[in-house]
């Protein structure tokens, strides 16, 4: 097993009722898409927010990531809505 540090921001933080959580993943090559699939499998609001047409963004180790971006043991994986600053 490897462990990821998940972080949530803004609307997703409120919807998921948490701002961070550890997530265990198999110790094999793993991507952002695999992490999202794992969360969507929780069903309910997780499937609703991450498994449908709603738009979200992912950052790995504080860099914007794509679905095929690899994640490594200990990575910080943040999931959040499109940004609205400025």
């Amino acid at each position: 097993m490897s462990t990821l540090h998940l972080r949530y921001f803004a609307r997703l933080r409120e919807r998921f009722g948490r701002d961070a959580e550890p997530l265990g993943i198999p110790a094999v090559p793993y991507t952002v898409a695999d992490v999202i699939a794992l969360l969507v499998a929780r069903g309910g609001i997780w499937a609703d927010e991450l498994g449908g047409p709603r738009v979200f963004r992912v950052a790995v180790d504080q860099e914007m990531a794509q679905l095929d971006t690899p994640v490594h043991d200990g990575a910080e994986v943040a999931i959040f809505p499109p940004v609205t600053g400025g």
Partner: protein
Amino acid sequence: MQREPSIRIVVQAEDFDPGQEEALLHDGDLHIGGSAAFVGRVRADGDDLLALTLEHYPGMTEKSLQALAEQAAERWQLSGVTVIHRIGRLLPGERIVLVLTASAHRQAALTACEFLIDALKTDAPFWKCEERTRGKHWVEAKAGDNNARQRWANHE
């Protein structure tokens, strides 16, 4: 001859003084011909806005602002860039953001300032939550901001 551009990135709850920042950015560099600034304020959009709360991603926010500032400084040969973004609860009329660019030439300073405020709005992890008389809700990203950002992409 050419100094390294001075880059100052600040994310803070406190207000800032655009005049003091202009003076600080200039700071005795006599080759600066001018600076351009954009100051964003909380607009009383729709007349029932009570407040905005700005959330950010500590660490990543500063890194992404630093990266945008470095990109602008290189592309427009700037002498300096200051970006200050406030977080927390802000009332209508309060300042939210300052983008300040200094250059030997006015066109470079103005264009870089416009690039930075456009890019910040789509690339830097900040989120606005509106408090209105009928409740709170998170602001949705605007297509217009993505279009404004896209204008700059051809040359990146």
